[in-house]
């Protein structure tokens, strides 16, 4: 339409026109909701079998500098279905952005909101993910107050909240007064440290301790829960602390180490009850781009069903103004240590599915001249404490099989594959490789004693 652009601009400008007042207390939320943070890089395909989440907090922009109003923002093209969406703006520094950033932020919000509207996404509000220092909370409150002035009435403001803000004597009340909801994050509350046993991602929380602290504001809040894992090289005794800050790995999996005889495994649980796997090198070895000397250790901290279940149960005990939970995060395509959304929702008792037997999922490839099939091992227990051996049989002879790199799977015969998985080394859906045959074939799997 000739007038489409002016109309959108008008809508956007009108959205800026009304000022909101101070947010007063609310009635307690009527409905318990569950949601995810959807960060850039997250993939919609992870939603294949999941129940639609109530809320999706979509990372749409990053405030780049404190003073200069620089901002990069866009709405991901492909989003999983959710009942409600929030636009999340992250500030990467531990500070409060300068007020000069407010008009830029408002403009971006208006534009993204208009885009979301054309895509018929139900956007409820904007969430600010700003790790303000605790002693700068008053400035943060001012920032939100100014930001509010540019938003259309009814468009809500949510903030993520650091636990430190809630200790006595802070200005957290001023901040929360300016918002419609807050989301305390119960993870990554401390930097990883030399003590491998105490490092944790999740923060254990006690509803009895935190409920009074949060409910007293009479504002809706949700509890942020981690569902991601992490791999890091443990620092050696004589290495400076800063060294291990740069040694986190997103692409390594326990399988990379478990299937390598140069490593020995030691398992434990940390204070948050997350599973900790320490693989220690016996000799000099290179894995991916990381070199390990003898004694060098890589540590995996993994979310477990029990940790998530306990966290959700604790959140439910908060009662009062607690409106639900938000899981960090919807997995990205490259992430191997983050739980899948349906798995998270299942353990959190938000959806239910029966435990299925281990199976081979065969996905037809798109080959013209041959029949190619991608094979996945499905439903294996990622937390199995023992190694397992599987025999995979095809209904007809294969021409060849291309195993996934580093995966211990091999052809025993023209119609038989063997997969040997060490303890803790599988995933709920593990890609095995591609089978190629002249015609379409079926596959079955049995676990060997």
């Amino acid at each position, binding site marked *: 339409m*000739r007038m489409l652009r002016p*109309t959108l601009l008008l809508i956007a400008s009108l959205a800026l026109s009304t000022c909101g007042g101070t947010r007063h207390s609310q009635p307690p939320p009527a409905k318990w909701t569950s949601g995810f943070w959807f960060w850039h890089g997250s993939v919609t*395909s992870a939603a*294949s079998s999941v129940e639609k989440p109530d809320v999706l907090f979509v990372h749409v922009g990053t405030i780049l500098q404190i003073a200069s109003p620089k901002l990069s923002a866009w709405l991901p093209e492909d989003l999983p279905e959710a009942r409600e969406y929030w636009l999340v703006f992250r500030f990467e520094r531990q500070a409060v952005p300068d007020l000069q950033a407010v008009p830029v932020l408002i403009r971006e919000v208006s534009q993204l909101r208009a885009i979301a509207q*054309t895509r018929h996404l139900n956007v409820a509000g904007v969430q600010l993910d700003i790790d303000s220092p605790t002693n700068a909370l008053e400035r943060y409150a001012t920032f939100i107050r100014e930001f509010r002035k540019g938003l259309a009435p009814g468009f809500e403001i949510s903030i993520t909240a650091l636990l430190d803000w809630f200790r006595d004597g802070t200005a957290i009340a001023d901040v929360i007064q300016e918002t419609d909801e807050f989301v305390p994050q119960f993870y990554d509350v401390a930097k990883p440290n030399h003590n491998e046993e105490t490092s944790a991602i999740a923060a254990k929380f006690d509803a009895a301790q935190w409920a009074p602290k949060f409910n007293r504001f009479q504002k809706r809040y949700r509890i942020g829960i981690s569902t991601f894992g992490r791999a890091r090289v443990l620092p050696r005794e004589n290495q400076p602390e800063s060294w291990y800050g740069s040694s986190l790995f997103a692409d390594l999996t326990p399988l990379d180490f478990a299937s390598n005889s140069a490593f020995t495994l030691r398992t434990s649980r940390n204070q948050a009850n997350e599973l900790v796997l320490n693989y220690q090198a016996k000799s000099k070895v290179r894995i991916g781009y990381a070199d390990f000397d003898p004694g060098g250790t890589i540590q995996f901290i993994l979310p477990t069903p029990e940790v998530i279940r306990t966290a959700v149960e604790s959140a439910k005990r908060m009662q009062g103004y607690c409106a639900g939970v938000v899981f960090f995060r919807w997995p990205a395509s490259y992430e191997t240590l983050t739980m899948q959304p349906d798995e998270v929702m299942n353990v959190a008792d938000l959806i239910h599915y029966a435990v299925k037997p281990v199976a081979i*999922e065969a996905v037809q490839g*798109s080959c*013209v*001249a041959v029949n190619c099939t991608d094979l996945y091992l499905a439903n294996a227990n990622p937390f199995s404490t023992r190694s397992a051996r599987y025999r995979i049989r095809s209904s007809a002879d294969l021409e060849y099989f291309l195993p996934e790199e580093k995966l211990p799977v091999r052809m025993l015969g023209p119609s038989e594959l063997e997969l040997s998985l060490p303890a803790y080394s599988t995933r709920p859906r593990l890609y095995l490789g591609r089978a190629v045959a*002249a015609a379409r074939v079926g596959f079955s799997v049995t676990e060997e004693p």
Partner: protein
Amino acid sequence: MKISRRALRFFGLLLLGFGFVFGCGFDDTLREYLDAHFWLPFSKQSWHFERKNVKRISAPYAGMVKAVGTSPLANLRRAYQQIPALDPSNVASETALLRDAVAAARADRSLTPREKEEVDLIDAKIDMRLGQASEPEPLRSSKGKLEKFLQTAQTPEFLSEARGWLAYMYFLFGEQTAAGKIYLDELNRDGSNLSRETLLTSLRMTYGYDGGPALREHLQEYFDTPEHAAFAIQMVTNPRWDRSIGRQGGNAKQADQEIQWYKRVVSLLESHRALLNSERGANALALLFMRTALGMGDPSTALKTAAMIPRASEIRQEPDFMWMLASAHFLSREYAAAEHPLLDLFHSSHSSENQKAAAAYGLCGVYRKTGNPVEQIRFALWLNTAVRAGNMYLSNPSVIEDQSVYWAISGWDLDLLLDSEAPIEALQAFLMKYPAVPDVGPVKYSLAVRLARENRYEEAAQIYESIHASLRAARMRRLAELYADSMRIDSNVQQTQEAKYKLAKFLSANPERIYFNDALWQGVQRYAMTGSTESRLTGEERKALISRERKLRDDQEERWRAYLILRDVVRDSGKTAVGRNAAQLALGCLRRISGRFGRQDEIRKADLELSSWLRR
């Protein structure tokens, strides 16, 4: 200084790498005709559904003629035209002024019926402009007024405009079907007051690439007219081919759902055959059936449907038909049968550049499968020329708007064909048959390189001279002499060993200048060697590919070939001066062999043996 040089070299290479990646739109795909996605039907966008020679008008929109005088209508027009400049902080009072202006104009009894309609339309548009996401009530009001207006108004240009705005309201309220049908009808309506560009943009905004879930959900509602049905079916079956998703992006459940979905489309088509019962309509229906069958991976049904279309039917001349017929044959592994429709498509004056590219690349596949490297070179070369002429290398394949089309941007298919896959005789036959095709130079250059690898230096020199590659030509002449010396039967043993040593020394001093084809590869050849991970070939083809890749690595590596000669010299000369020199030189060759070569264990072993031999 040493560090600086290394740093300089490192950053230089890094810069070169970034330059290549960003400048050339890095594309690492090969043999895409082996992928079923490549053969999916062409995608359709709104402009494909535009009737030719639609007679549009361009009358001012309601309220947009210049406001002259102080009549109530002029005042209303003036006020309406001020809306974009409304003071956002004072919307309420400004809105009241607009309402007053509408009321005043409506009260003017001197208005003609046309002017009354203009006032009504302006009234509806004011509501529309005051509405927004958080305050949809004015939008609803506008929608109601527009619907009412369309029932009573008579002025063609206002009716057309009102339909456009109503469609926009439907769009804002998420009513894709209602919006889309209006836009589509208006696109092909004589007398429409909406511009072609506006309508195409609106259709694009309404449907995106394939209509999304809303079109799938409401597909049945489009079977009210043949035009709506054809539009909806073609949009909803637009192919998706996201090369950025690797093998692990698959999901069996989603694939099954997709098949079920296509079955539903077929069932809808079957139950609405009557909608397309003219001869032309029946053939169009056949095209839709072919498109759907290919979408659900059923080429045999597509072939059967194609066979039912009369030989003389015009529809057989349409690029879509030719492509789908070829696809159905190729996907049925009837490779030779795909040749004719692809050639027809390639030569058709109705084909777009994208469609010609699809045909050319498809023909590369056909000739690969039918063992005709001469014609394979011809079309691979055409593609390479077309890519460069159209600056296609600036576009990553995954962002090509038509997601069913692949442009062979990397050029690796051609490079491998010339450098390894096509026999020397095929290159010679190609040059005999097509001596004057554009960009024939790389074929000649490649033939010269290939001849050099066969120690046919004199022939190589002549070709290099013919294309003014004088440095290479001179090198070939010198090599011809050295090689001849090393092969003389009238030399004694020592002379032969010395001649071989000289030949090897020359080779080792000219890495990538003799056997390596520097005209084809841009420093990324190793990424084009994908035999070990290629899974679209038969077992036999894959073995042959891996073997060819190994041979290419061996044949093109000057230092390896020099080492092999020197190894024989060491063996045959023993601990003589020439033997020791050969061993020293051989060690140097081994240690400087290019990383792309491979054979690491052999190199390490040979290095140890020679080092040990020299120490003894």
